[in-house]
């Protein structure tokens, strides 16, 4: 572990500042090396997939491990979008003039050494080698043992890209040692590691949050709700609800539960079933028993249980529960929500304002799909994940979220004593 951290510290000292042309060159080289080395990556990935299958992993888990051409295309596209975003993100900021006449501005600085811990998705290795590094960070990447062979192949590709761009070799370190004691030891090194980004299961996120003193950019799961006010256009609300879920049912920004004002809950149930009737893929509406009368015979529904409050349905399913009004919806969201993405559908501006005042989440969506909570869609550029923490990084973890800054005071010879004497 000492070698990993020593190399990281050395690389951090040697790296050029954000905005240096070598980062753009690195991005370009990473795309090229990934494309030319993809056959080797796939061969290594096949080893992981075979091992996972032998170990008895289910088909869904094996699917998480497996790479294909579409993954390469997505990664190359992410790299291209990162290159487009870099100049703006790292541009010098315009300063302001302080009361004493000095000019004060912010200079972008990298967070430093970032440790990413993740599980079975090998694309995260590339994302971790791309986004933090593009703005000047050192990345230590510890993926799950399920993707060990893939990560070894990706480490070769990443190493070539660093070399092509003339960046220090220790800038990205892919940790392939399976020993979990190493993970525990790294989590204790707040003296050498500046930021921790876990991505994976709830247990992993919890573990990092509770076991480490390194600041965490946590991208927890999304237990997200949509409050439909009695003033809402119900046909629109139904389309919003379905779009909020069915496009990407396992994503963290999708809808789990519609909280419908009791005056319109039955009609909304019927509207949801109508809106979803013609869909090519099957889906399920989980209905609160109090709304059973609104369900026509043969409709694709299941009962929404009490235990489903706070649940993420990682499937093509949406729940609907009636509430007495906005206050009950807000109380439900405060109790069961994960402060990720919350939405309101209402024509009444007062209801919208009350919802925005009462609900606290990384993103609040008004009269639109919850899946609009997405860095590129919000015009914030490529994102590493979506954070639910309350400090510094909240919402899309974009390139700018992977930077901090130094305040620069262009004082022009001014002294503090002179300033205080004058005031």
């Amino acid at each position, binding site marked *: 572990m000492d070698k990993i951290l020593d190399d990281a510290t050395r690389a951090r000292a040697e790296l050029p500042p954000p905005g240096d042309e070598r980062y753009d060159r690195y991005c370009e080289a990473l795309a090229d090396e990934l494309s030319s080395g993809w056959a080797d990556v796939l061969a290594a990935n096949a080893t992981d997939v075979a091992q996972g299958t032998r*170990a*008895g992993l*289910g088909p869904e888990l094996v699917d998480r491990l497996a790479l294909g051409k579409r993954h390469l295309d997505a990664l190359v596209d992410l790299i291209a979008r990162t290159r487009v975003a870099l100049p703006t993100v790292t541009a010098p900021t315009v300063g302001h003039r302080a009361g004493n006449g000095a000019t004060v501005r912010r200079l972008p600085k990298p967070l430093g050494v970032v440790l990413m811990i993740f*599980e079975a998705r090998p694309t995260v290795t590339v994302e971790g080698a791309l986004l933090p590094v593009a703005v000047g960070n050192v990345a230590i990447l510890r993926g*799950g043992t399920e993707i060990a062979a893939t990560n070894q192949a990706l480490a070769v590709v990443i190493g070539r890209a660093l070399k092509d761009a003339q960046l220090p070799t220790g800038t990205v370190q892919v940790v392939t040692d399976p020993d979990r004691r190493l993970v525990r030891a790294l989590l204790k090194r707040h003296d050498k590691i500046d930021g921790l980004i876990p991505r994976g299961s*709830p*247990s992993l996120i919890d573990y990092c949050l509770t076991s480490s003193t390194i600041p965490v950019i946590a991208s927890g799961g999304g237990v997200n709700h949509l409050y439909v006010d009695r003033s809402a256009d119900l046909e629109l609300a139904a389309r919003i609800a379905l779009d909020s879920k069915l496009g990407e049912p396992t994503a963290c920004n999708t809808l789990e539960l519609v909280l419908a004002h009791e005056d319109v809950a039955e009609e909304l149930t019927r509207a949801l079933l109508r809106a979803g009737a013609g869909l090519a893929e099957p889906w399920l509406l989980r209905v609160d028993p109090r709304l059973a009368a609104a369900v026509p015979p043969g409709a694709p529904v299941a009962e929404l249980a009490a235990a489903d409050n706070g*649940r993420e349905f*990682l499937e093509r399913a949406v729940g609907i529960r009636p509430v007495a009004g906005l206050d009950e919806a807000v109380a439900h969201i405060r109790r069961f929500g994960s402060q990720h993405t919350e939405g309101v559908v209402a024509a009444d501006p007062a209801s919208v304002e009350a919802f925005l005042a009462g609900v606290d989440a990384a993103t609040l969506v008004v009269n639109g799909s919850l899946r609009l909570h997405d860095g590129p869609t919000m015009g914030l550029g490529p994102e590493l994940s979506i954070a639910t923490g309350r400090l510094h990084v909240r919402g899309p973890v974009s390139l700018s979220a992977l930077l901090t800054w130094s305040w620069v005071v262009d004082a022009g010879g001014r002294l503090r004593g002179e300033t205080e004497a004058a005031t």
Partner: protein
Amino acid sequence: MTDRPRVNEAVKRLVVRESRVSVDPGTIDDLEPLNGDLLRVNSLGFLGMLVRLEDELDVTLPDDIFAGRAFTTVADLVDVVVDLVREES
């Protein structure tokens, strides 16, 4: 506390959290399916679950603890972990 109740509690806390569901772990039946109407455990054996269990039970679990075995219920999972905890102690 003997091994089994302690492991039982730890495993139930873990599977509830992994299933992203808001229920009291103490209410989970031993025979509750790991992938059914209530629980949805789909990261069995991954890093997060292993380090959590190791910390809670103060044991070291082998990487392949869950490999090649069929787990249907919470009790199946508890059985394997109990055996390991006994071997370690």
